């Protein structure tokens, strides 16, 4: 089982250290991590996966209480090749699937802004 945590954070020096410090203290080994600029200006998105869903659940409230963490959510789907978060006039949409599926959906829907992570989950 793998749990995927997606969080929106301030795009500032030190944020990764603070977030990862929480995983260190809770003895959670992070399997994969992708971080970078995202759909919102001045913010960054961290998408990471951990092997223990119960531990992921336990760390969520601690992440939420951090000043630089804007949003945290657990992405339900497991073991997919790719994840994308897309924004258009209708709001946000989150999808997971194979690389081909994600590419096809992005191609088809042409969102105003999107981020995608490949082979990260």
């Amino acid at each position, binding site marked *: 089982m793998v749990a995927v945590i997606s969080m929106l954070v301030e795009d500032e*020096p*030190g944020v990764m*250290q*603070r977030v990862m*410090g929480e995983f260190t*203290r809770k003895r959670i080994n992070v399997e994969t991590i992708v971080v970078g600029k995202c759909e919102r200006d001045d913010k960054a998105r961290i998408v990471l996966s951990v092997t223990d869903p119960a531990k992921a659940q*336990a760390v969520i*409230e*601690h992440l*939420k*209480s*951090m*000043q630089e963490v804007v949003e945290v959510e657990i992405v339900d789907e497991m073991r997919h090749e790719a994840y994308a978060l897309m924004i258009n006039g209708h709001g946000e949409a989150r999808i997971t699937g194979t690389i081909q599926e994600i590419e096809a959906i992005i191609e088809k829907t042409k969102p105003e802004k999107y981020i995608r992570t490949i082979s990260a989950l």
Partner: protein
Amino acid sequence: MKGAKVVVELLERQGVEVAFGIPGGVLLPLYDELVDAKFRHILTRHEQCAAHMADGYARVSRKPGVCIATSGPGATNLVTGVATAYMDSSPLVAITGQVATGMLGADAFQEADSFGIMMPITKHNFRVTEAKQLPKVIKRAFGIATTGRFGPVHIDIPSDVFVTDVPEKELDRDYPTPGPRRNLSQLLDAVKLLESSERPTILIGGGAQWSSAGPEIIKLAEILMAPVVTTLMGKGVVPDTHPLVLGVVGMHGRQGANYVLHNCDVLLAIGTRFSDRVTGKVSDFAKSTKIIHVDIDASEIGKNVKGHVALIGDAWTATNALISGLQSRAIKQTEWRARIKAIKEACTCDFDLPGEPIKPQKVIKDLSRYLPEDAIITTEVGQNQMWCSHFLEMNGKRQFITSGGLGTMGFGFPAAIGAKVARPDKVVVDVAGDGSLQMVSHEFATSIQEDIPVVVCLLNNGWLGMVKQWQKLFYEKRYKATTLGKVPDFVKLAQAYGADALRVEKASEVKDAIKRAVKSEVSFLIDIATDPEEDILPMIPPGKKTSDTIYGRCKFKC
């Protein structure tokens, strides 16, 4: 306006009355502005004590305590004090100087990564790399420290930031801190559980202290006819003299309090994180008890103990909500409720022990009797702390201040000085051990030079008593590195700083020594020769159950 002036101006606007600190190379521009500051600066003798003093000040005034240290060693010395405040959710704003931004990361003289070091022991911390960030950072720091669950906030300021100009209009911008998310949606579930409970118990922790919820908790207890027990951090929130209050729970807790904690069917836990010192072996804790967990910090729910019902909010608000929910409901008299008086009586003993060497229990008894009714009592950590926790009588007006979470030896004396700064009209007493006091005894210099008189009641047994007790009980008396001997002569030590001091070797002399000390115009040390063989019992050994309790003199039967 120069960065240093901006810092001072913003501290003044935050209503800061006092800052505790020690200057250093990179702080010179800031200290130059402090010459004309409207608030007091107290020069301590060690940065750790600056943080403890700010912490003691904060716990009494309920306003953020401010401490200042220089870069490198100043910042690292501050760490223990900041971590202590973090573990006990005390609001601090800790300011450290830093080497100039151009030197950062170059291993410059007196450079340490204080931003990285402070990160896991603060509620939040900032590194200011541009002077124009100062207004936002300082306003946010005070906001974060005092919003929701309180905590220390650290600000690291490089030396060049202090001398860089900031446009004055920047100082007027507001940077509000959003309040915590309150969630009382399970209130009705909590009310129903409490209403139908046969054997309810209320456990209160430090959250009730910070929220000043004592009178409301007593009102709720009276409605429920439920006993109230406290954690170490909750001691003093409710008066021990009240018939429903059974005292402190846990490893060295009152047996009556532990009995109701472990035998209730519904536990209402308010502002407590279920520390291991409260639960003992956590897998055996409250297995058949339904827990209603009230906490201002959502991340505490389910962290150590799984609750059944959660109310997210401050202790005062949640308690009032429970009162209004339960007020009109008929609470039935049960056998449990009828027994509370008997349990309290069974847990009452005469600990006014005579004879020499003086028993620590006797000293605590005399402190309970002869300290002013609104005294502030701080403790160090170890046996001295547990004697106070178990035996010191709180009447609802006294305040009890201790390092509960981090367990920092050397906390009590500087915290007492900070408390006295917050309330100069009150008698402040540090109950100390000889091991703890030696870690911070240099602060007599601060108390004399700054005219901040406190009383140090030293339980001097010549040992690191608590560690010795564990070596005695669990390591077959193989004592190692726990004897301190008869050095120093504490009376001479205190006198060398200009404090007054008295040695007490007879039990009958404790009373007069306390009466003299509380009237002293300067700091006063009572050096009491206590019995090194008297262990703090009863005790539930670490990680064990109540059935494994070592009783000692305790005759509790229930």
